[in-house]
């Protein structure tokens, strides 16, 4: 078994310059919060350093919340790119607002990311700029445009619309 502490230390050195905040959600995990503009450079740095491999891309939906004054904050989508090396897991976290949900593609570095990017576009409504394929992956052909099933606000279609 390789030492994951060492791998975590390595990735921290590589990604520190790109991130605004570093978190440790679990002992074997390290998360780097960064802006969408830094994502491509960060993935490039990981790729060139040959640190780990892309395990999956996960998206989280943070719907708008009302504060005590009744003011509604804007909803956002958080895209997490998880890279793994032995037991160490590094997450690159990019948050984008509902009004401008754009992230750059990482397929230029990792071609196999296309499936995850298609899923982001289809299920969450994230716009992945310059991604090689925008074809649907999982929803049916009569699925309406602009309805994103994995958003928290989606709770199925009404009986009439079926």
């Amino acid at each position, binding site marked *: *078994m*390789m030492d*994951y502490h060492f791998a975590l230390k390595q990735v921290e050195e590589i990604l520190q310059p790109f991130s605004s905040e570093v978190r440790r*959600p*679990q002992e*074997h*995990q390290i998360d780097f919060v960064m802006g969408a503009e830094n994502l491509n450079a960060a993935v490039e740095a990981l790729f060139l350093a040959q640190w780990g*491999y*892309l*395990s*999956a891309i*996960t*998206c*989280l*939906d943070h719907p708008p919340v009302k504060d005590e004054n009744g003011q509604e904050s804007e909803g956002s989508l958080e895209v*997490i790119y*998880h890279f*793994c090396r*032995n*037991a160490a*897991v590094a*997450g690159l976290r990019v948050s984008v607002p509902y009004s401008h949900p754009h992230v750059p593609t990482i397929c230029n570095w*990792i*071609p*196999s990311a296309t*499936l*995850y990017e298609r899923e982001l576009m289809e299920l969450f409504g994230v716009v992945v700029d310059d991604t090689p394929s925008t074809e*649907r*992956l*999982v*929803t*049916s*052909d*009569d699925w309406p445009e602009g309805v994103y*099933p*994995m958003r*928290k606000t989606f709770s199925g279609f009404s009986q009439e619309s079926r």
Partner: protein
Amino acid sequence: MESEIKTDNRFVVPIGPQHPALKEPGHFEFDVDGEVVTGASIRLGFVHRGIEKLAEQRNYIQDLYLFERICGICSHIHATAFAVAVEKLAGVVVPPRAQAIRTIVAELERIHSHMLWLGVAAHEGGFDTLFMYSWRDRETVMDLLETIAGNRVNYSANLIGGVKFDIDDSQRDAILRGIDFLDQRARYYLKVVESDETFLGRTRGVGKMTRGEAEILGAVGPTARASGVARDVRLEAPYIGYADYPVVLVLDDRGDLEARFSVRILELFESFRLIREILSRMPKGELSTRVPRRIPEGEIVLRVEAPRGELYYYVKSNGSEMPERVKVRTPSLCNWASVASLAVGHKLADMPMLLAGIDPCFSCNDRLVTLRRQDTAQTMTWEDLRQYGIQYYRGKRVCP
């Protein structure tokens, strides 16, 4: 009937989604030049069930059963991954005997999955005798799973916090006897796939993938290990009992179909060895521990080695009884890219073997019917297609 002439000089052979050669729905389009494949595209996802969305509306205990039903072959590993992730979020420690039983069931499941695959792959290669033999022998491991769990598939061994059943002495003896028989049979299969001339004609040098290609295409599991990628989650990030009972990595750098056959069969021996070792020194003690219904806020990435490769679970809890988000990435998804790229340059007749070579398991969804006429492509919905069919047959006066 009117002849359809292609204007762009491509000849496309569509296979699936419903096709006698495939037992699960997937759609493949192969561009061919004579017998040689010049391009391939794959469309997946005819059986998407929205499990990730469902999981957000159910509590952790219900979700355990839901995730066990993602796959009918590797059901235990899904439930294990979810249970371990939730246990870590809750901060509970599962008794060692429970972890050992989880590991035994996981390895029995790997044996069952690999033997099932061996049969399917042999069948795709036109070697039905091997298919019949391997599936007959697979019944042994299915019976063992039934003996200890009461079920042939969806064993439901896990609880969040432990396992449901113990393995007593008579069950242990039955497992050991079954493993001895399978060990002997697996030796025979290894000899067959490495020496039978007709079989080697279908596998040797076919679908070669170098280590570099496997890494770029994102291949995982036995498919990647047959190309020399030394990666196995059981070793890299040991979970359940794998820290106490380490596995030995099975690696082959030939990268062709033959290598994928031998890697999987050699992994069978490794599973036999591991089960014998665990049974010879089973820890004593409790089978489960209490876990609160409300899981404290947190998030975790948990990876396990399913029979087909790395399985990824991301679980985010929000302090309630239901998870905030669960993301599952199954190993087959990673391996599909390799098929599309390996297909080019091979004969059309090699395609079933190449597809079977990654041990595909279908778990996504898309439904689209595209009609290709002379130089137009027209997309039809199911309803359009149904109406088209009705009109067509009315015109032929086949039906009223």
